[in-house]
């Protein structure tokens, strides 16, 4: 299980390849990548703040729960912070399991929990100014299905 919280961009292809190469015995690898939207060209970027003392711990807990619940061979979470331009990758998860159902479910679980239980806050930057992204009720509701 690798958890990385970093300002630097990551190489999605290289990360998925390296992850896949290390998961002996798995029959399925699922990856998800979140990108900065440009909202029809109105956004100039996004600034992501996090709580350094808590972020790694929170993500590790979420990932360990996913590994245990779906009997994953391995899991990977990379999440960036700082200033990002539209189109840049914000984060990625990868899960490896014996079968694809478990790999997909675990990846969705990771995304649902990272969204509202990992201490990151997004601020949208545009020509008109800046605005903190508000959490949606649907984000919290998404946790109930697990």
């Amino acid at each position, binding site marked *: 299980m690798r958890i990385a919280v970093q300002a630097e961009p990551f190489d999605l292809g290289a990360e998925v390849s390296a992850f896949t190469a290390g998961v002996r015995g798995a029959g399925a690898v699922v990856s998800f990548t*979140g990108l900065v939207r440009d909202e029809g060209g109105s956004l100039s970027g996004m600034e992501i*703040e996090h*709580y350094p*003392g*808590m972020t790694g*711990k*929170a993500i590790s807990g979420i990932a360990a729960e996913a590994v245990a619940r779906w009997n994953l061979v391995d899991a990977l979470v990379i*999440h960036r912070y700082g200033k990002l331009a539209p189109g840049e990758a*914000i*984060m990625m998860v990868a899960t490896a399991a014996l079968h694809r159902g478990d790999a997909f479910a675990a990846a969705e679980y990771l*995304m649902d929990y*990272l*969204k*509202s*239980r*990992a*201490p*990151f*806050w*997004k*601020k949208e930057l545009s020509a008109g100014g800046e605005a*903190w*992204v*508000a*959490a949606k009720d649907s*984000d*919290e509701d998404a946790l109930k299905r697990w």
Partner: protein
Amino acid sequence: MIDVLYFAWVRERIGLPRERIETGAATVAELVEELRGREERYQAAFADLTSLRVALDQELASFDAPLAGVREVAFFPPMTGG
């Protein structure tokens, strides 16, 4: 002494990322009351507790949680990761 951290718009409203506070508050709610009584900017930040979350020593907690033994309290809006 307790370290109090603020993130996102809570940090912006209060105007600082962290401070050390000498407090006799027994719970998070009591600490919030104490901070609200300080200045306008704290009132602005803590106006609506339903739009705030709190972590004690880097673990999410509730506003009625006790502060005994806690070294770090963090206040922030609901998280928007992913």
